[in-house]
């Protein structure tokens, strides 16, 4: 049981990276981005291209760090892939969502367009890399280390938690200390007042999509390292991501982090009683329960 909770925290950390992005975007543009899961997939596959294709071509040695399953290639690919997904995310907003916003389109149209964007991103991934399961390093032994209470954890997973932890700290510092971070919080509070104060809200929106995309990309790569890569991987995470976002209070970044961890643990612990194939159903049930019992989330929304 303790082991399932630890695995739940690992899965939850990945979900949290996605739900933080969802909640940031929702807080600023009041829009539920159904393509967010597929941005994770895109990040995972861009990293796959960088690790297997480009790195080999550039002659970067294919070694691993200690007992981790990856080395310099992934260390370089990780930030580059994050930037690429940030770019895709900003591009989607500029060419698709922003024109619809400007026309004050109905929320259903916005949701449909996001769903369409999700399919497009996923199909591009499937066309380029096929529908097979992929690994960053096929055939590598991934030994586990034994922690107290009989918990087996792989070195990869410990590093994964450290990476997520660092990204969240960086985001916290950005939001609390930097001028653009403060402007993002101000814009989430009241966009009209932000404009009246002279804040360039369009620039704030671009930063928001960029950060949301970068975090989604990171989440996708980490999921690929921890489990495997597949064209539907991000979309399968979308439901727990939304549940985590709602659980934490829509628009509340730190709530989304906690919500992600809760969803990860709930899904993993459920496998002690249910078949693992029911994991998405568990996410769905938790989401319905939250909506019925406490739709404002455990911490309330980010907006008063």
């Amino acid at each position, binding site marked *: 049981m303790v082991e399932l909770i630890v695995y739940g925290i690992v899965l939850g950390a990945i979900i949290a990276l996605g739900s933080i992005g969802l909640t940031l975007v929702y807080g600023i543009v009041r829009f539920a981005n159904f393509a967010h899961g597929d941005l994770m997939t895109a990040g995972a596959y861009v990293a796959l291209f960088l690790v297997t294709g480009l790195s080999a071509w550039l002659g970067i040695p294919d070694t691993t760090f200690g007992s981790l399953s990856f080395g310099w290639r992934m260390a370089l690919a990780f930030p580059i892939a994050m930037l690429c997904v940030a770019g895709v995310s900003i591009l989607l907003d500029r060419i698709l969502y922003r024109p619809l916003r400007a026309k004050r389109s109905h929320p259903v149209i916005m949701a449909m367009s996001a769903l369409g964007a999700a399919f497009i991103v996923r199909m591009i991934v499937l066309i380029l890399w096929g529908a097979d399961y992929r690994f960053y390093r096929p055939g590598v032994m991934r030994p586990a280390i034994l922690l107290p209470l009989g918990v087996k954890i792989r070195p990869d997973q410990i590093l994964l938690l450290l990476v997520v932890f660092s990204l969240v700290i960086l985001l916290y510092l950005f939001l609390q200390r930097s*001028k653009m971070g*403060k*402007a993002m*919080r*101000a814009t*989430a*509070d*009241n966009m*009209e*007042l*932000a*404009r*009246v*104060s*002279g*804040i*360039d*809200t369009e620039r704030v929106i671009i930063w928001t999509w960029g950060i949301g995309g970068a975090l989604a990309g990171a989440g996708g790569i980490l999921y690929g390292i921890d489990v495997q890569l597949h064209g539907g991987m991000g979309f399968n995470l979308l439901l727990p991501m939304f549940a985590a976002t709602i659980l934490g209070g829509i628009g509340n970044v730190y709530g989304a982090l906690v919500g992600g961890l809760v969803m990860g643990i709930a899904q993993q612990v459920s496998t002690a009683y249910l078949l693992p194939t029911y994991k998405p159903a568990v996410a769905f049930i938790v989401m319905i329960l939250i909506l019925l019992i406490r739709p404002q989330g455990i911490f309330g929304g*980010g*907006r*008063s």
Partner: protein
Amino acid sequence: MKVLETKNLVSGYGETDILHDVSIELKEKEIVSIIGPNGAGKSTLLKTIFGLLRPRGGVVELIGAEVTGLSPDRIVRKGMSYVPQVDNVFPSLTIQENLEMGAFIRTDDYGDKLEEVYELFPLLQERKNDKVGKLSGGQRQMIAMGRALMLDPRVLLLDEPSASLAPILVGMIFEKIIDINKTGVAIMVVEQNARETLKISDRGYVLAMGRKVFEDTGKAILENKEVGKLYLGG
């Protein structure tokens, strides 16, 4: 010298015109009040001047340059700030962060300006790291005015600064308006609280049904029995 002028301004929401041919002006160092009954178009006038509503006709001039139809984030760079009547603070930010957002477009060191605002509103300095969402209406109004001052505006537009404040705070806010004016900021204030506002105003305009129906010095409007009966509630 005129710092703000509207000529024959027409504006409204949707299909309906709310303002009809409104021409008003604000001179340097003045406090000018816009008064009139509910629904007269007072707030609409300020929103149109500040670019939150696009005028259907007429001209807005700010410090000698036309700003008709410019967006608020452009207008604020040209020396005019605006304090909305409601939702005029960022509730999840601290007091200090609210003021910093007022200075967002400044690239110079605005530490002095921050000090100045804190001198004007000492209460804000004491609680500068408190989240604004928890504060009272009077404190929020001070923060909102402080935020608007961070860019050293020549012109300040205030939309009903005393609305929904306890009577004891109303006097305090009007004193602050006089203090701000003394630092060289010309102020145009829209108010329900007409008599109190006229007392501190150099001049006033009476708006009714979206039209300018009367204008005079603040004192003269207060003494005018007919205007008093018609528009100031007897």
